[in-house]
């Protein structure tokens, strides 16, 4: 997806299975597209019909989240994928000191 210049070329290519989430301190998390799309906010950023930069680059920079926070968010996305259709769901661990920040992030991502 390096050639973001031409839209036509972009359309003809199959979309990458993975997207990149970048934290404020520059850490990159490469995760499955379907995981990112659990969050309606990220999903609309990645929606091709809106032609955002994010959807062309398959890369979303989340300036409000540092790497610790984003790692936890990604953790949750995997937790969601793994257990959302299961009966027996283990608890999702959240460090107490992160709860408020994570709530802000979760509110932004709508997850």
């Amino acid at each position, binding site marked *: 997806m390096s050639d973001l210049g031409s839209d036509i070329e972009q359309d003809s290519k199959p979309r990458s299975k993975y997207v990149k989430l970048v934290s404020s301190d520059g850490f990159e998390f490469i995760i499955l597209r379907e995981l990112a799309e659990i969050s309606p906010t990220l999903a609309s950023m990645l929606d091709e019909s809106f032609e955002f930069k994010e959807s062309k680059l398959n890369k979303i920079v989340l300036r409000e989240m540092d790497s610790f926070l984003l790692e936890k968010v990604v953790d949750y996305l995997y937790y969601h994928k793994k257990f959302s259709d299961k009966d*027996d*769901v283990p608890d*999702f661990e959240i460090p107490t000191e992160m*709860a*408020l*920040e994570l*709530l*802000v992030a979760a509110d932004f991502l709508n997850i």
Partner: protein
Amino acid sequence: MSYRRRAPANTITGESHIRGPTSALTGFLREHGINDDLIRRRQELAEQNPDNDDENQEEEEGDTEEHPLDGAAPEISSAVQDQDEKEDEELQIRIAARRKRRLAKQNESDYTDSDDDDNDDSQAAASNSSSTPISFSSNKKKMTLAPGMEIKCYECPVSFKITAFSRKVKDIDGIIIGYLCKDCAQEALEKEKLKREKALKARKRRKKVAEALLDKQELKFPSLQDLCVKLIIKYIDDVEQFGDIGTVNLSKICQILCKNRLLSDASLQLFLNPEIKDLELFDCSKLNADSLKKIAAYCPNLSNLSLQFAARLNDNVFDYYIDRLDNLTSLHLNGSFLIFDDMWKKFFEKFGKQLKSFTIKNSYRFTDKSIDYLVSNCQVLESLTLSRLDGVISPTSYGKISQISTLRHLEISFPTNEGLVTNDSVIQILDTVGPQLETLVLDGCSALTDDFLVKGIKANCLELKKLSLKYLDQITNSGFQELFTKWDSNAGLMSLDLQKCVCLGDDALVAMIHHSSGSLIQLDINSIGDLTFEVFNAIKKIGLPLLTTIDCGFVRAVDNRVVKILNDAAPQLKIMEVFGCNRCNGSVNIRKGLQIIGRQSDSI
């Protein structure tokens, strides 16, 4: 050195000095020279004596404990040592003979017992029993097994010595049919543990589902926001400030705090900031007057304020509110019984021109005079709720509401005595506000009769969408029929609440369904006992395309057939409450998305 020297003295048997952790009992027995060998030998001696043949294991154990052997033990063991081999042989022969007898008996007798064993999971290995050297059939005879005997494990071909701690295998009647070796016992123990854990988990989950059901929610996968909110609630006392967590989350935290009765002077501060326009606190019972004052001090731009259980909201605080909250358009108070007439006068005089929504509940200091101030000052009031006001005692007071011609939502409920809200006063109100009225709630005004339905509602209420008439036990079929027959001016009700209108029957409901079937979303017919299957037959024919919730608890006619009819005739139906309908059980197939709450058969 001294320690080392002492150590062998303790071990009379001269075993290896290296040992794992042992119990106090083991230590005690070892000190007295009692070990496996000794116990086995005593057992063998007992075996030789035919009188003691049927003594069971517990008695044997009791014996050894009651007469513990002292220092003489080693002597005994040495004395018996010579006989050891002989006895061992004899024992083997004995056991073999007994086994043969048992096998023969088993072949003769029916196999019902072993069949039963096969059905039971824990006894699945019963079929193996014939292959073990000592076979434990499901014979009802007591086994002569005692610690010290060497037998083969019930599960695997390992031989081992029975100890007091060996795990017994019992059949369904509780009779011991064998023992497990150490490894198999460990395995069985782990299996049991797992099973227990699973059962516990399953129970927890069922509890969760049941709780969600009673809250009329479906059990959903927890969102990250919910998880965070839960954690924050737990540590609410340590939170200094919420960041930008969004108004939805803020109100969610507030609601959960109030639900758990945790909203305190300290945590209130977290919800106050000068920008908010709406504030809703569901439990102010722990807030003192100073904290309540803070609300107006920190949030001067409030336009919508709702305080429940605000008992400590007194004249002084309310005066401060009146001075500070210039933008207030909506005030909802519950339980504020420390605000007196004069302060209500001041309030209505200042806010009469802008107040759009006003609720007062559970306050005996809101009196006839207060209603006068309300009526004479409020010019744009659209929503008014007066509920459980024991200070309103004049029969003319409620009728004065007719002067507020702008009302669109009106609730007058549970007056202190039923004579205060009469047909005449309601008709008087509806004559002026009826044409634009959308909501009418007259719960507990039990003096009302059919008259107000026809002369009040039918004649005036063109726009009425929500009607609640709980506990009106004087309205009858004929009134309802007259109201809903040819009521063409009204497009249909969306919500109808008829809980405990005990004089209503089939005809009333059928007439209503003919009129409002196309628009009805919510219906409450709780405790209308006279309803029969006929009503539901009518629903089956006409259909209720928009109906989403129905409460038909304590209606005798509701059974599985009715559930099926509603399942089919109301495609949008999501919640159906059937408390007290004993003939509803789980045997009806209902579509996904429809929740039935209150069935006796849904036990956890």
